[in-house]
């Protein structure tokens, strides 16, 4: 069976593409899927450190397309999860070191062996973006609830559709429930309405992401993390399971719920 290739993109930088790639990949691997994460941010590689695999890199994506090594040799196996692999970006080269055509061939090669190929896209709309999307059959657009991020997401959605990648899905990251309640942050309905795009899921702002990134451990491993819970729900949705989208964020915040119940009881 042929695997699916998803590109995680955003336009604007720093909104959580790499965090999302690492966590969705890990969550899918925890569900027993065979996953390869491809870092296409050549020159600014980061997926390796977010995954905690930076010390194990021998070859990278540019070595593979240049024929310096076999594809299998460049794949780093994650020791924590069966079936989770990383293809790192090159750090010394630039975005033009790989062509869209080479990228497409590479992704198609990976599809044969994996259930999902997740491509972490660099920020921007130039060559790096074009490379990243060239092998994908589906796109996840990450945006934070801010004017600049949603605006860039809109531009990216237009470019994806022009490139034939129809039906991209939106992942809203760093939502702050409290600010939304106060009317100081756009809510999910506002964003989905403006972009008129399918919503894949919502990840809350969560300090545990910083802590787990410090350790090189994806946050989905933390059972108590709200962002981790959100990513696990989104991963289930990606495999076709029907998981309802929660209104404020994807975490099932038991403490908040408990407080509500207490209030009702009084």
């Amino acid at each position, binding site marked *: 069976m042929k695997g699916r290739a998803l590109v995680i993109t955003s336009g604007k930088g720093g909104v959580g593409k790499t965090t999302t790639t690492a966590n969705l990949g890990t969550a899918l691997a925890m569900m027993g899927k065979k996953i390869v994460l491809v870092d296409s941010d050549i020159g600014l590689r980061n997926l390796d450190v977010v995954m905690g695999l930076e010390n194990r890199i021998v070859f990278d994506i540019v070595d593979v397309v240049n024929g310096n090594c076999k594809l299998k040799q460049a794949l780093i196996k994650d020791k924590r999860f069966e079936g989770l692999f990383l293809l790192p970006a090159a750090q010394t080269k630039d975005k033009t070191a790989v062509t869209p055509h080479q990228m497409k061939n590479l992704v198609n090669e990976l599809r044969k062996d994996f259930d999902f190929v997740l491509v972490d896209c660099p920020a921007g709309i130039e060559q790096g973006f074009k490379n990243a999307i060239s092998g994908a059959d589906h796109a996840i657009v990450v945006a934070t609830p801010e*004017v600049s991020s949603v605006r860039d997401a809109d531009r990216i959605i237009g470019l994806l559709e022009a490139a034939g990648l129809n039906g991209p899905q939106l992942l809203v990251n760093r939502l702050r429930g409290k600010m939304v309640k106060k*009317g100081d*942050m756009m809510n999910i309905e506002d964003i989905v309405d403006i972009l008129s795009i399918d919503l894949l899921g919502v990840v809350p702002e969560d300090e545990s992401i910083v802590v787990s990134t410090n350790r090189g451990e994806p946050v989905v491993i933390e059972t108590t993390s709200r962002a981790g819970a959100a990513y696990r729900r989104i991963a289930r949705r990606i495999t076709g399971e029907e998981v309802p989208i929660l209104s404020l964020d994807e975490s099932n915040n038991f403490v908040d719920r408990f407080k509500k119940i207490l209030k009702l009881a009084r």
Partner: protein
Amino acid sequence: MILLDVLAKMFTKESVSSKDIARERLRLVLVHDRSSVSPNFLNALKEDLIKVIREYMDIDEESLSVHLENEENSVALVANIPVKGFKRVANDVEVQA
């Protein structure tokens, strides 16, 4: 005009949440962003317009012009379509209505 409402509210000290301001600014900036369309898009639109209007009246297809005009708070589709004459069918529809 919704922007004006928001601004009006701001000045009359009725409280407008910052997210409403964000949403309105976003709506406007996207209208402008999305209006930078390709010539192909406008040509396709023009051809479809001609097809529809031809059913109702005789128009001068050669001197027909269609373009988008940007203003501060909005974008308008401006079409200038010289009419040569009306078709009887169109008049009939009028009478019946």
